[in-house]
């Protein structure tokens, strides 16, 4: 029952999604890739609350998780779930750690996270410059103008077995703010992330990216 030896594809997916969710920082209000790259440069940090709705055919109502998200350019992330399972993912200066609240308090998880880390950090470096089109893992298309929608489709078979597409909705009235991300696995099964109280370019203590707190 080796749950921690979870598929490297799945692990990679988790971190790729973390990366995608760090897009509030990266996406400006623009309807073409050049403008997105320009807008991306002005956003240095972001802090937000998020809700995660997991829709599954086995569930009659979605499983809702809540938490907080912090990003500091170029590649520091704190992705923290506060309910129903307390968990913190920290990415900072090339280090990645994950902590989960369990019967012995909050403990660092062991497992296949390090392998995925390098890939993700490389991706973040690209995406933080708004370079969606050169992405190795996803092909990207952009739709609409005000409040545009970015659709990411996996290029690799391994990823497409887990994710069929990702739809990023940008705010129509707040440049640089992402409204939601929908990760579609297959028909009836998807995860919807929504962001509220998004603050851009605020001071975030470096400690938040290093310590569980």
């Amino acid at each position, binding site marked *: *029952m080796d*749950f*921690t030896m979870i*598929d*490297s594809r799945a692990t990679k997916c988790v971190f790729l999604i973390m990366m995608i969710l760090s897009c509030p920082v990266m996406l400006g209000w623009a309807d073409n890739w050049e403008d997105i790259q320009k807008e991306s440069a002005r956003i240095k940090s972001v802090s937000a609350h998020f809700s995660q709705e997991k829709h599954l055919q086995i569930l009659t109502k979605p499983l809702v998780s809540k938490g907080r998200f912090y990003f500091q350019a170029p590649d520091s992330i704190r992705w923290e779930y506060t309910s129903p*399972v307390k968990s913190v993912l920290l990415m900072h200066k090339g280090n990645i750690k994950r902590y989960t609240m369990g019967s012995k308090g909050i403990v660092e*998880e*062991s*497992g296949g996270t390090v392998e995925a880390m390098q890939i993700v950090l490389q991706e973040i470096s690209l995406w933080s410059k708004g370079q969606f089109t050169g992405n190795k893992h996803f092909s990207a298309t952009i739709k609409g103008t005000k409040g545009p929608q970015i659709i990411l489709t996996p290029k690799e078979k391994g990823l497409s077995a887990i994710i069929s597409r990702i739809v990023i909705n940008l705010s129509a009235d707040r440049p640089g703010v992402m409204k939601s991300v929908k990760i579609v*696995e297959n028909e009836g099964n998807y995860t919807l992330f929504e962001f509220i109280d998004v603050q851009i370019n605020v001071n975030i203590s470096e400690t938040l990216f290093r310590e569980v707190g």
Partner: protein
Amino acid sequence: MKAFMLFGHRFLILMATVFLISCSSLSVIRHTDRAAAADAIQRCRRPFLDIPYRVVHSIEAALPGGKTGTVVGVTVFDPAAGTIHSVIMTIEGFVLFEARYEKGGLRVDRAAPPFDRGHFAAHIMEDVRLIFLAPQGRLADAGVLENGSSICRYYENQDRIVDVVVHQDDTWEIETYRTSHERLRKIRALSVQDKIPGILELTGFESSNYSLRLKLISAEPVSAQGQ
């Protein structure tokens, strides 16, 4: 040659020790009177719900070598039909495993490694079945333990004995053994409210020990059609 024989003796002693450690004696069932046995049989039904339910748990896994991990599990089971539908996903919502246990047997809809290895899926669903569905085997004995807890012993196919123990505070345990008395699994249900455990602890004792701690997130009855 002498050195080889000495090694051989040590090896035998080591193997015997390993065998003795892996074997446990079955609990001694006391028989007071017929009424007590009937009462025990009644109480042994308490761990098992009799209508379809959907339960969501966080699952904390502790594995050999100190590895740990947490996932989320969703299970819908129908005791009357004997069916189970299980999904295991990461905290971020990625489905790693989905399978159904139905009359026709096990059907795996999704299994990301390591869930696709060998009999892994079958073992997971067997653990889930052990937790949520009443034993299917022959009731061989019922009575009380020395501490007053009710116990029922079932003999199932596949060389397996299942002991269901319900304590006086309504918490319960299920233990499985081979007929050679080698212990296979132990499940403890804690913080039981309205027949639903807040915590379930499962320990596996086969080739390598592992433990799962299931913490209840939600539980709700479902219609058979709503599965």
